[in-house]
């Protein structure tokens, strides 16, 4: 997947490109308005990560430009402004999703993949690793041919692990992915532990390998090298 990151802050842009490059994306960076327009005019991108506030112009203008040129790229807005108006404006102008700063890199990754699935694969897509397969269209998960009886949260959690393979996911990151705003007020993440425990149990019961492991002190990780 080819991604253009439009972000004026170099450190933040570096974080994003480093994480996404490790995931196997081809990342390009534009750190201002004109640079972004140049790159958009010359190349095609599957997805665009767009910061709204740029030093030489508004990110929403770039959004309008993309739409007027009929580029097919998926667009994810990242903004420090957690304001409803911006969100509505952005999505109204044709962005696919909106992420408020500060965000978690695994979350950004999951959102980009979701946009990609929706836009290019009409949602009918299998995310898989070895014997574990998830059909994002029917929302079914299987270990080999055994259908897993997962709750909605467990399904979301499994998908999150599969998308961020070999990545440490902290309890905080998982909680925010599963509960969104509702996680804000609950700073005790015991319930994340519960969900992960149940998910692992169900995979093992379906004769799958227990790839998910606890990373001491940090959180959890889907370890692909586990046998």
């Amino acid at each position: 997947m080819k991604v253009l990151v439009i972000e004026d802050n170099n450190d933040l842009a570096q974080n994003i490109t480093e994480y996404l490059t490790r995931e196997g994306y081809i990342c390009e960076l534009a750190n201002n308005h004109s640079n972004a327009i140049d790159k958009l005019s010359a190349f095609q991108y599957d997805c665009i990560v767009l910061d709204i506030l740029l030093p030489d112009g508004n990110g929403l203008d770039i959004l309008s430009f993309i739409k007027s040129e009929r580029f097919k790229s998926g667009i994810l807005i990242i903004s420090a402004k957690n304001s409803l108006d911006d969100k509505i404006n952005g999505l109204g102008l044709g962005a696919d999703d909106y992420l408020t700063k500060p965000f978690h890199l695994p979350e950004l990754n999951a959102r980009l993949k979701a946009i990609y699935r929706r836009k290019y694969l009409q949602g009918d897509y299998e995310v898989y690793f070895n014997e574990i397969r998830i059909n994002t269209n029917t929302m079914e998960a299987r270990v080999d041919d055994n259908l897993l009886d997962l709750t909605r949260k467990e399904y979301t959690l499994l998908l999150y692990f599969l998308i961020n393979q070999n990545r440490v996911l902290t309890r905080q990151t998982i909680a925010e992915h599963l509960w969104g705003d509702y996680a804000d007020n609950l700073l005790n993440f015991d319930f994340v532990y519960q969900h992960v425990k149940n998910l692992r149990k169900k995979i093992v019961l379906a004769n799958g390998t227990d790839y998910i492991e606890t990373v001491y002190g940090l959180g959890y990780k889907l370890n692909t090298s586990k046998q």
Partner: protein
Amino acid sequence: MKLIYKFSLWYLVITFFVLIIGGVLSYYTIKNEVDREQARYLKKNIDFTVQELTRGIFPDSLSQNRMEITRLAPNTPEIDFLVRDTMVWRDYLKRMEPQVKVSASRVINKQHYFISTYGAIVDTQDITDAVVKSITGIFLIMLVVTGFVSVLISKKILMPFNKTLKAMQSFSLRQKKALQLPVTHTVEFKKLNTFLEGMIAKAQQDYQTLKEFTENASHELQTPLAIIIGKLELLMNSEINDHQAKLIISAHDAVEKLSKMGQSLTLLTKLDNREYESEDIINFSQALKESLFAFEELIEMKSLKLEQVIEENILINIHPVLNNILLNNLLSNAIRHNRENGIIDVKLSGKMLTIANTGEPLDFPPVEMFKRFRKNNQSSDSIGLGLAIVYQICEQNNIKINYGYKKRMHVLNLVFQ
């Protein structure tokens, strides 16, 4: 009391006293004048009597009802006119009446006569009556005229002032356009309007600056925080030992907390600036049920028992976003400060929402419940802004909120106005 009524009342009170003094003055002036006239008339009578005596008429035939003639010793000195007041019995009035008495003594034909006469053209009582009547009349006329005139004048003179008042009442700092006050030619009102216009322009400017600052501060803070979180997440995925992992995760959690705190403070500032004003009427019962549904899982995980009685179709006027924050904060609070296997009791009926939950009593006075950064366990992970936000939202939407600890339960009561 209206300004003009105050003016009129003072005016009338002062007029009342002035009229009383005026009445006393006119009484004495009139009485003086009448008495002088009376004395002149009586002197003329005496002069006439003296003429008659000179012509040799007997004094006895000249003495009548009001004229007394007596003889004095011939060597006593003559008395020129002597005017005095005297009291006289009046039959028809059945009482003593003050009258004027004039006396004189003259030597006529070697006889010394003492002549004295008295009388009154106008009764003192009549003067008093007349004065009281006219003063009362004047006062009544003043009353009516002042009443009418004050209303008319107040309308005319105070019109620019009232317009200014109205403009101020309907003015809101959030409105973008400058305050427009009516043109007036009264110096005081002109000064007032100029002052108000200047002050409000300044306030609007400050308000705008503050708003921009809040937004910018939030933006500028969140970007470095996003960088730190990103760097820590990248570091997490590199080769690290357990000790380093612990350090990274505490730093990560602290940054998360910092970011949440910033967002909460920004929200509080936005509430302070009344940026969430709304005409929306929402179905509160529905919203409450949705929130409870969203928390269902978290409630189950803590093995809490949820008891709910929710009346259907309770409508209230509140911004939907604020309502969402309000309910989330209240419910998450009831979950977080609960004990294992505890109870959450949610009741909505009429205009009252009650949320009660089991939990340890507060370790600070209940009045500080809604203060910023007040936490039951100061070392706990919460940032201590949840209830401050709840309080602020309630205050701005005319919702009365109070807290009590009854039967080992924390009870929060919200009454919609």
